[in-house]
């Protein structure tokens, strides 16, 4: 997602008459710095693997994750079940692979949702200013003041049963809760970076040439103010994955028969003393996914920050 966003910036830059041959725009510089960073390739590989797991879990395992063999319940890792089996006799490896879908889906959708809502609100209040800005900021404050986890719990419990019908609606329910409570931080960030970009000469020049506000925002303000949002959104993606697992752990997010790392970890905590493998493998998968996105965010930040070079 981040790569696509950055590619988009460089495309608009070139289109706007930036010298194609020289290629010294911030985005192309950042891309160059990023390619040289080994951490970028590590995190990109991890993210690709998790994305593949989410889309085609059958690529990684042919075992059915809901195939319970109760006779082998709590079995330790062996040749048949690489990661062992949990209390229900499910194959833990298969469940880890299939669990990626919920986490990645929640992470990606939450990030998209918060970036869209937060970005639009942030640009509007930063560019327009005045009463619209005050109104939007106060509304943002209201959502910001409610703690994320608590607000999400109340929100999830109060949703009608309609949302428990099928898998995607259940995931959507979690996404909705996290987006509704998570957009203000991105809106604040976007607003402040738009305010920083707005007084620049090229924006004034575009306005003097008679460009419409729409065009000014699209081709001058957005490409130059998107960097901090990209960084925070990438890091947040990892945080949302952790939040989904936490909600599932509390028994409020996803629920059986949905497969999620959070649910499996929650079920495995009782066996911490006797069967630690049940806890270990889903936790490693969850931590790796969160780590991959946080590392990518770090790399992108280093690449986009000229002070670090």
């Amino acid at each position, binding site marked *: 997602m981040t790569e696509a966003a950055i590619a988009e910036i460089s495309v608009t830059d070139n289109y706007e008459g930036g010298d194609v041959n020289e290629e010294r725009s911030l985005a192309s510089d950042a891309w160059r710095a990023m390619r040289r960073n080994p951490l970028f390739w590590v995190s990109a590989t991890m993210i690709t693997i998790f994305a593949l797991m989410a889309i085609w879990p059958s690529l990684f395992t042919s075992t059915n994750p809901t195939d319970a063999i109760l006779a082998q319940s709590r079995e330790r890792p062996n040749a048949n079940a690489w990661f062992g089996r949990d209390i229900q006799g499910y194959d833990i490896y298969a469940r880890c692979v299939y669990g990626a879908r919920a986490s990645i889906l929640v992470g990606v959708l939450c990030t998209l949702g918060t970036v869209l809502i937060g970005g639009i609100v942030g640009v509007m209040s930063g560019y327009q200013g005045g009463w619209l800005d005050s109104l939007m900021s*106060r*509304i943002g*404050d*209201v*959502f910001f*003041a*409610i*703690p*994320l*986890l*608590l*607000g999400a*719990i*109340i*929100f999830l*419990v*109060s*949703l*009608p*049963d309609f949302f428990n019908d099928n898998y995607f609606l259940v995931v959507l329910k979690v996404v909705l809760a996290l987006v509704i409570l998570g957009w203000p931080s991105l809106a604040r960030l976007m607003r402040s970076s738009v305010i920083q970009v707005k007084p620049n000469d090229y924006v004034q020049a575009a306005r003097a040439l008679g460009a419409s506000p729409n065009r000014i925002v699209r081709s001058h303000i957005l490409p130059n103010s998107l960097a901090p949002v990209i960084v925070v959104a990438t890091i947040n993606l*990892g945080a949302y994955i*952790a939040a989904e*697992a*936490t909600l599932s*752990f*509390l028994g409020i997010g996803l629920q059986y028969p949905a497969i999620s790392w*959070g649910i499996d*970890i*929650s079920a495995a*905590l009782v066996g*911490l*003393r006797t069967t630690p493998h049940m*806890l270990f493998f889903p*936790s490693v998968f*969850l*931590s*790796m996914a*969160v*780590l991959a996105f*946080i*590392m990518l965010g770090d790399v992108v930040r280093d690449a986009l920050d000229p*002070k670090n070079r």
Partner: protein
Amino acid sequence: MGTYIIRRLLQMIPVILGATFLIFAMVFALPGDPLAGKCGERPCPPQYAAAFREKYNLNDPLPVQYGKYLGNLAKGDLGETYNGIKVSEQLKLRYPITAKLAVMAILFESIIGIFAGVLTGIRKGGFLDNLVLVSTLVVISIPVFVIGGLAQYFLGVKLGLFPVTVTSTDPTVYELALPAMVLGSLSLAYVTRLTRTNLTENLRADYVRTAVSKGLTRRRAIGLHAMRNSLIPVVTFIGFDFGALLGGAIVTERIFNIPGIGGYIYNSIRSRDGASVVGAVTVLVIVYLFVNLLVDLLYGLLDPRISHD
């Protein structure tokens, strides 16, 4: 200064109103009937049900209910739970415990975090720096319920260094030490990284070079000049974090069996006890807003260029 504080206090009012309304509306939409199971295995007698609904204004539409609630709130009355216990009494029992836990977590994360951040910040790229960077990444990516479970098992059960669970309603500092460390672990990682980044950035600033070249020792130049400016984002984060910790203690409280506010809210949501949820969250929001005001006032102390007049 005085007018600034008054303006900020006035700005709080719409935020408090909005947040309480939001929570109120969500609680209003909670599915289920508070009268269910109230009278044992038979349905409640109609007279009792009618009196009950009358007492808790359950027959009114949402805006009227909210208006009545606000009227009571303005008089300092947080209402009664459906069991006829005053919500304020309950909160008085629970809040001190969570507040103690959160304050201990804040102390833990700020003392160790700032210390580690300074140590790594002044020697960027060294062995210690890389060690701290990697270990903070690991802590960030492991979800808090896994850290909590592992810490409880290894430090509490196996080594016996800390009590495994909290058993009293007035826990001692020693009893809360391990939960506080677990609660503050994620923020500890953030504080460390934030301090490190800001310090390295400020160490290159002109005024630090001036301070060194006019003959100050390195210790004084860093401690007195660079530190004060580097701490502003850190203080902002810690202030924001206090509110987040109060609300986010839900998971830690569950793991360590602490009778704090998180568990109280969780149980109230589950039993559809609206007054308790709204009351507890309202207090959380107010605390959060006041801590943020305090942080903004602290800026002036850290950086004399920032004034609130």
